[in-house]
């Protein structure tokens, strides 16, 4: 494990390329949701056949998850050596 000495440039080192990927993801998501226009999905629940159900659920579930977890940090987060402070801890 040594500090970076190689000067090789990787494709991902260019922030413009990362932006390209990010935009690509938006486009992919747009295309995926468009499938719902043509495909009548067979679902076990009626509510899941609504246009874009899975996309919206995935997106908002993850945003909610992260925001909730961020709040949880206030409650749960402690210093890394929290349990080591009293050395008798077994």
């Amino acid at each position, binding site marked *: *494990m*040594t*500090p*970076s*000495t*190689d000067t*090789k440039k*990787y494709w*991902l*080192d260019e922030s413009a390329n990362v932006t390209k990927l*990010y935009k690509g*993801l*938006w486009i*992919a*998501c747009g295309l*995926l*949701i468009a*499938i*719902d226009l043509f*495909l009548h*999905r*067979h*679902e*076990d*629940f009626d509510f*899941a056949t609504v246009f*874009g*159900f*899975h*996309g*919206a*659920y*995935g*997106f*908002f*579930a*993850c*945003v909610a*998850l*992260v*925001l*909730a*977890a*961020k709040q*949880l*940090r206030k*409650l*749960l*987060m*402690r*210093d*890394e050596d*929290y*349990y*080591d402070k*009293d050395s*008798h*801890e*077994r």
Partner: protein
Amino acid sequence: MSGDFPVALILILGAVLIPVLPGLLRKAWMLALPVIAFGYLLAIPHGLHGQVELLGQTLTLMRVDKLSFLFGTIFLLAALLSVIYALHVDDTMQHVAGLVYAGAAIGAVFAGDLMTLFIYWELTAVSSVLLVWARRGEHSAATGMRYVIVQLMSGMFLLAGALLHWRATGSLEFGHIGLSNTAGLLILIGFGIKSAFPFLHNWLMDAYPEATPTGTVFLSAFTTKLGIYALARGFAGTEELVWIGTLMAAFPIFYAVIENDLRRVLAYSMNNQLGFMVVGIGIGTELALNGAVAHAFADIIFKGLLFMSMGAVLFRTGTIKGSELGGLYKSMPWTTGFCIVGAASISAFPLFSGFVTKSMIMSAAAMEGMTLQWLVLLFASAGVFHHAGIKIPYFAFFAHDSGIRCQEAPRNMLVAMGIAAALCIGIGIFPGALYALLPYTVNYEPYTASHVVAQTQLLFYSALAFAVLMRTGIYPPELKSVNLDSDWLYRKAGWGFVVTFRLALTETRAGLGGIIEGRRLAIADFLLRQRRPEGMLMRSWPTGSMALWVMVMLLAYLVLYYVG
């Protein structure tokens, strides 16, 4: 071929030879053991073997049926992969512990009665803790001790439950148990500890990240999946398990998002995957049970693969903290690729193993009309992609370049990861082979257009959420920290209670001592005063006073006589 010889003993007795064999021969022997054991397992017919009469009970050392065969197979495969992964390790103790541990788990799977199960159950605890202690630090010593106490406690619950079950039914056979009496409840708690039920789960996140890089790969395969096997055998269709499993699938993902130790993130996501299996067992229909055990099978491989990739990172860089890593794809491109395959599998991307196994459980829940549970599981599916599928590879291999440059993982590690990755994709593309091993006939088609589209949408939009939160800076950064979980109860609150109680006890004793000391002097003084030569009791009395007292008594008698 007679199946009376337990397949577990091939590994356990074989492991004894490891320390005495020289270098290359030792490696060949370790690789051969799971292969020999599997060959033997294939050769013996399904049925009950190795039955021993003991104290009027028939113990069955080898029960081979579809369920035990499936778990025996995957455990042997996991043992082989773990041995390959650990081949470069010189510490023989770890090799012996690993193989004895694998053997014990296999013995437990083939146990036909609760006593045999109990013995192997405890052996998995004792052998696996050595993989934690093998890290040889003060930290791992303490963690290992906590781990083994919890594991042995699980065995105690099993033993107590088994004895009650014996008294109630007159049999020790390990079949369906159910929750109808105390025996069932005790056994369920024993199994629940191993399967990491909510509030019984924390040994997993506590111990697995503290084991050696190779030890965690062993650990990830056996203990929890043994719990799942035992639940599938004893508690299929137990309704309570549906909610327990749903809770298990949901709550660990919140922790996984904010956890910094990437192997601990994997431990949380393992807990989440176990939740899916527990739900399947709770539903108890043929589809659900098939899904639960198929998912256990797939999980052993993809979770093993993920732990292998993180173990390789830890081995090469000396750290596994998200806050210190990043940019490793430049140094470890193969490990990165294999990790992404594992991540895609656990996230249930189409063409990867999780897709064809987890969806059986989801479908089974939907068929039973469990709307709320289904929605929570869907949330958990999105969440697992978010933290295990994206977070793990992202923070280790991409994110900002940490500047760490190291070697690619050793060749044996790459071989193990390569095989595991191939299996993940193989099961994903050809699920028929795995389906054929399942306990019930499978009438399930994972690759329908609806299912593929729905799942892809779910995952891509989860990825989009991650990307958006990252670009906007809302995503919480990886921080050096520890997050409180239920182990706080015994590590902090419990310890605090002991300390406070001891302090209180000492102070009370001191206080009481002071009071007693004061009283003691007063009492001594009082006694002394009476017993001094001129004290009241020691004084010599004149004879006249005696005559006076006799007269008083006689008078009193006289008075009483008249009154009476």
